[in-house]
């Protein structure tokens, strides 16, 4: 796993995470919705920030499959 991408992903998700405790000990297994309690509507904004940060385009279909931080890292690494 690309640690730099992992750190960037966590940083982007941070303002949207309601569960600060889970965020502090986030791993690739951490579920963005259930563990971090990110509002499902706000995930749209997170995807846009991924696109801006990493210079890529994420389709709606790909975005819908994301559940964990690891899913984000894998997707970003694949599209980069």
């Amino acid at each position: 796993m690309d640690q730099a991408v992992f750190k960037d992903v966590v940083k982007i998700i941070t303002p949207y995470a309601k569960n600060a405790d889970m965020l502090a000990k986030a791993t690739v297994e951490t579920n963005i919705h259930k563990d971090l309690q990110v509002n499902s509507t706000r995930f749209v904004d997170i995807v846009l920030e991924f696109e801006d940060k990493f210079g890529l385009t994420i389709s709606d279909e790909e975005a819908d499959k994301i559940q964990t931080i690891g899913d984000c890292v894998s997707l970003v690494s694949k599209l980069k």
Partner: protein
Amino acid sequence: MIQKRIVVTGMGVIAPNANGLENFKNALYEGKSGLRLQDKLKELAFGCQVAGVPEGIDDLKKSYFKDEELVAMNSAMTYACIAAVDAWRDAGLTVPKWDEDVLHEDSGAIIGTGIGGIDTLNDKVIPMTNSGQVRRLGSAMVEQVMASSVSAKMSGLFALGNQVTTNSCACSTGTEAIIMGAQRIRDGMANRMLVGGAEGSGYCAWAGFDAMRVLNRNSNDNPGGASRPMSATAKGFIPGSGAGVLVIEDLETAKARGARIYAEILGYNINSGGMRRGGSMTSPSGYSVQRCIRSALLHAGVKADQIDYINGHLTATGADPQEIASWQAALEVADGKFPSINSTKSMIGHSLGAAGAIECAATLVQMHHGFVHGSINCEDIHEKIKHIEKSVVKKSINKEINIAAKASFGFGDVNSCIIFRKWREK
């Protein structure tokens, strides 16, 4: 029909000259202007380049809300929600946690706005939509541009289970919201309401007024002297922004929890002039302004000579002398008996949909602390107001206020008036 007594138990203010109730009280007493030359208005060649914008909000908001919440809070929402949290705490109530399973089914909110989320429309929605970037607008646009944006967030902030809504009637909005909340409690539909108004600091909201030439274009070099209600040299109003929120409750509910009570809302009236008998879209009908004031007094069971203080609408346009004439006609008092009067707008400008709410808070702060603030910039009183000049408070005075009247008037020929009485345990 159940008719309950309504009392004010909490207040919160975000204003150009102060944030927070204590600071607002001091600013009013000291005659502190919050009006500043605005670089953006200068850059865009506004005729009037002075405005009232609450200061220090970027830092302040972080002590109230998490980053996740601030993602979708424009200036009007931020002002409204900080003022509401302050009011709720000032009333001795606890702000619930987001994950706390509590629902205040007896409590709601009516928070008005005149133009609301125009900064969000201007900064994001319109330019991005018109340049084909709809997909990149993100998730947070609708909740910031819907008319109810200023009240909607309060539902979750305070776990409100009663009515949560937004009213809008231009410059009468803030006062109308308080009356609408009082009506709901008086009818037994709620025990507690957050009420007030908020207006964002969006220069596009002010552009139309500038184009109408109703803003003062002559004081760009003197921002503190730009808002001149009741002055012979008044040349138009100065746009402002901010929020005022009150917590109002029925007397039994307030007493049962041992709440500190500021004042009782004795009576009120809302009406429209129908754009007849001198009224128009942009000017109030004196006839209906008087009708509104008289009806509020009647509803309150108060005689005109019992009014100690008037917080006027008084915007610093040519309408000020007409407003004074309407008050005098409605109260039927001789020149020497006219109540003390001032204009809070002299220090903070005209915050449109928030104005009535901030000014009701100003009225209650003065009542609670026993003073009438100076109405600055009216040393050169207007010729048609000279006959009651002794009643115009130009420098702050200590004075006991038992009963106060507050009125607001708005585009659309709409009016509202509230009568407050200082709370005293008998």
